């Protein structure tokens, strides 16, 4: 397939493409940062990526928000994914909150939120 086709397909699935990109960025963040908060952030980025993906499934090009007005008939976007994602976001938020609270506890214990620091303080660390 020629370059143009690739571009076209990317354009057609741009949402998915970027969702995956985001996912990877989030994962990378989560993977590489010692700072626990950054980890949590990375976690969120991943979640968001998935949400975006999900919503994108439901999106119809040129579709409107599914609010029914008499007489007007447009293409509507599929409301179900959005509805689900609302739930998803809630869940994500609660998880984040919980994770942050745990981090606070850790901070109370160690006075730092850097994993390496914590390891050093624990002393038992093998690195």
């Amino acid at each position: 397939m020629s370059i143009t086709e690739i571009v076209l397909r990317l354009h057609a699935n741009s949402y998915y493409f970027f969702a995956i990109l985001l996912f990877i960025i989030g994962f990378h963040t989560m993977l590489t940062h010692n700072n626990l908060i950054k980890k949590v952030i990375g976690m969120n980025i991943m979640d968001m990526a998935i949400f975006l993906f999900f919503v994108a499934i439901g999106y119809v090009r040129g579709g409107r928000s599914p609010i029914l007005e008499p007489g007007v008939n447009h293409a509507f976007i599929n409301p179900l994914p959005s509805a689900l994602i609302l739930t998803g976001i809630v869940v994500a938020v609660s998880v984040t909150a919980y994770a942050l609270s745990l981090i606070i506890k850790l901070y109370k214990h160690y006075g730092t939120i850097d994993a390496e620091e914590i390891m050093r303080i624990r002393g038992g660390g093998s690195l």
Partner: protein
Amino acid sequence: MNFSQHLPALIVVVPLLFAFVMPLLARWRKQWCVPVTLGAIIFSFAAALQMAFQVMSTGPFSYYMGDWPPPWGIELGIDYLAAFAALTINGVGLLIIWFGSKDLLHELKPEVLGWYYTLYLLLMASMVGIVITNDIFNMFVFLEICAIASCGIISIKESRDCIEAAFKYLVLSVLGSGAFLLAVALLYMVTGHLNFTFMAEALPEAMVLYPNNLLVAMGLLVVGLGVKAALFPLHVWLPDAHSSAPSPSSAVLSALVIKVYAVAMIRLLYLVFPRELLGIAPVMEMILWMSTLAIIIGSMFAIVQDDIKKMLAYSSIAQIGYVFLGVGLMSESALVGGILHIFNHATMKSMLFLAAGAFIYGTGARKLSELKGIGHTMPIPTIAFCIGAFSMVGIPITSGFISKWYLALGALDVGRPFFTAVILISSLLNGIYYLPIVVNAFFSKPEEAVPAPKQLPREMLVPLALLSFGVILFGVYPSLILGIVYRAAQLLLGL
């Protein structure tokens, strides 16, 4: 309105409700916490029983939340597996929290006790939800609740180990659920449905159109749930989490939580994905090998542990391997063995963890070397531990033997004696790390004189006794539970 027809909803809702009542009670009527919690769980246990009978008598049935029929509404599908799992969860959970009601007093700060019950009830509710729901997104929600709750009951004991373990567990399980959600998205993308039944109908032609989506989804599902169920290479979080948590939490985590994910995986793989896809894609094969590794290596790790709870945690890794072995072999008796092992392992492992908890409660000893001669000072927990150990090794007349029997038979059914051998070898390894504890407990003297242990209250002894009785009972009369397991396996295999 007919009360009993709403049981499927109530079994989830009631614990959920009481979960949020609990903090208030804890503030004003501390002493009511325990009875209320027990009450709630007893209720859902009774409900589960009722459902089980209903299923056995009239076959699977489903319940539409708010009377919205699928595909619009959320459907709770009570099939044999669901009823069985719900029964297991509530039954074992009941005994565990009963034990915990006393054990927690010395493990937790008094002000957080109420919260513990909250989390516990949440956990119960979500687990039941996971097993009975027939809607994949609903399952996702329950998964998340379950994840948070289970992290909660670890981190509630505010030692730093617990918190770190909880954090690790949390992050990883969020990763897992992320993968799960992505899989959901992919499935929804190709089918446009979230309800298992409809998905299952839509998938076959979707498979032809978008095979990649399906495969990716399947991979994401297996890995995502595998993380939560601590399938071998993904088990890394488990030992810390299970060993650092307070004993009842460890018990419930090892005994139930990881099994619930296994159940979820079973239902998705067998009920949703088209059989021919399983035919071409070697997913079952991979599960098989992962579980084999889990069985062998988990036991090997367990051998070299010195901390009793860590050892038990590692052995859980091996045991979940049995369950997945049963799943992967795809033969009737193997599946029966796997599902049965969900129950048997729940009973044995909770018993072992509770016994360990009792030791810690009585003597504060966590190291195996400190448990010498404990058999004389704390007979009942030791005997319970002993029975659990035998059951782990698979000595006949204990329930562990029965599940081993079926797994081995299944392995032979599909003509792969190798896996039978695997099971036997791992039993040997179990023997190697369980029996010395029993032996030391009864036959060897502690090096230095140890102070007499605290006497265990009845609330802790009775659950242990009941569990050990159960292990023997289901070893001698497995038919009590086998019927429903058989039906479940046949339903899953579409026989």
